[in-house]
């Protein structure tokens, strides 16, 4: 069980590092958003699964389902909002 928790923790933090590297190295705002919307959600899923497997109490499982639902529900909404202001600004710049 501890082996599974260890593997999940290390994989989750590696996915977070991949997202941060993408944010640092990519050249465009939309490319950076492509790096930063999907990988952190998956990393959060892995880390929350690790903590849930480690504790395995009913209330922790309930909170874990809640937090995974919330993260997977709100990450696309936030990304859509950011991309909308980006597109709004660029179209305005092209018009003038």
């Amino acid at each position, binding site marked *: 069980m501890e082996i599974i928790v260890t593997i999940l923790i290390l994989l989750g933090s590696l996915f977070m590092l991949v997202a941060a*590297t993408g*944010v640092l190295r990519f050249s465009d705002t939309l490319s950076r958003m492509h790096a930063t919307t999907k990988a952190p959600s998956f990393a959060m899923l892995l880390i929350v699964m690790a*903590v849930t497997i480690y504790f395995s109490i009913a209330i922790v499982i309930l909170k874990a389902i809640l937090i995974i639902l919330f993260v997977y529900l709100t990450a696309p909404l936030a990304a859509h909002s950011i991309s909308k202001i980006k597109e709004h600004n660029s179209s305005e710049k092209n018009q003038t």
Partner: protein
Amino acid sequence: MENNFLEISIYIAFGILILAFVFALIRLFKGPESSDRIVALDLIAAIVMGLILLYSLLVKREIYFDIAIIIAMISFMGTIGISIHLKKKA
């Protein structure tokens, strides 16, 4: 021995997450536009949630789970609020 193994792996994961935090912080300071800064802040909120979950694993208390939920909510509301403000300003 097993417990010690898990503790060492938690410290390694702390190091990786702090490296990711530094990368996102560099983008936050350097970002040419404000949308880049919002993207970096969103990533920083996710990294801080991961750090708090790892800390709850280190001290073996499950009460720190609530902080991660609150950080997720506040990060979402902050992103939406800043983007609406920027769209109104532009």
